[in-house]
């Protein structure tokens, strides 16, 4: 298994790019929910896909997971997962304030996830002079097997994942969701090359 092995400058650069993307995704969330979102420094770590799936959900059906593929230039691609804890996915319907007959809870979660994922990745891509397109978001049953089956269907080698943990604290509620970016090894190397290019300018 190859590794990201980011040095301090590369890690800092990636962190800052992610900060900017997270800020804009949170702004969208705040507008969508008509509330204020308190931001914390996001945690970024590289994990092996296997160990991640094992820890993702210890019991069956405990969370909602929305998955969406992204594709950019220069071989930058991957799969973004938004993972909601069960109490947070229930709370989401209250937060969103949809009328009961408008959209199902599932549709609302997919809606919100897609806004967060595409806003985050569009801003991320723009900063590295890239541009993303997306597959349709899909709600997976929140179990290990559903997530690993879904990843197994993709045509990449998923040895590594970049786990970006973003905690959205909504003023009146505590609402959390983790954004996890699964990135194939080749794409990780490409991202590293882009980061080095950015750092050369400094």
């Amino acid at each position, binding site marked *: 298994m190859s590794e990201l092995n980011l040095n301090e400058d590369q890690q*800092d650069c990636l962190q800052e790019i992610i*900060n900017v993307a997270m800020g*804009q995704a949170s702004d969208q969330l705040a507008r969508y929910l008509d509330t*204020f979102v308190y931001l914390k420094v996001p945690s970024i770590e590289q994990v092996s896909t296997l160990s991640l799936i094992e820890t993702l959900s210890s019991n069956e059906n405990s969370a909602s997971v929305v998955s969406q593929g992204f594709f950019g230039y220069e071989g930058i691609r991957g799969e973004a997962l938004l993972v909601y804890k069960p109490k947070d996915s229930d709370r989401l319907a209250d937060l969103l304030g949809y009328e009961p007959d408008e959209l199902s809870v599932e549709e609302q979660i997919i809606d919100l996830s897609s806004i967060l994922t595409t806003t985050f990745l569009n801003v991320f891509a723009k900063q590295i002079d890239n541009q993303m397109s997306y597959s349709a978001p899909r709600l997976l049953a929140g179990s290990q097997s559903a997530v690993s089956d879904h990843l197994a269907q993709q045509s990449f080698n998923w040895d590594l994942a970049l786990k970006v943990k973003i905690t959205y604290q909504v003023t009146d509620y505590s609402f959390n969701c983790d954004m996890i970016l699964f990135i194939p090894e080749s794409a990780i190397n490409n991202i590293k090359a882009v980061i080095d290019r950015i750092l050369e300018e400094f």
Partner: protein
Amino acid sequence: MSFSVLVCDDSNMARKQVLRSLPEQLSANAQLAKNGQEAVELLRSQQFDILFLDLTMPVLDGLGVLQALKDENITPAIFVISADIQPEMQNKVLELGAKAFLRKPVQLEVLNTNLKNHGFI
């Protein structure tokens, strides 16, 4: 006339981004702080004319710095530079005394326009 500058951001890259966007006379002797606490301590011991301040930081965040400076009546011209672009946050920092809110990644022209508007260049 020269002005003393403090740049506070937890990201090395963001600090460099600010420094290289500043005109030479402002960046030459600029000092740096890695979090809000470091910035407040520097501001207590030395006089600064300009503070560039990030918001989302460990130890003490940007709002904490603005509040501390207000409480202690320390009054540099503060330009907040942040990725947290929510309108409510922008209003908050202006209420706490910041001169302007600039969104990250900071653009050279925007920074310089703001410095001109406040008579620093």
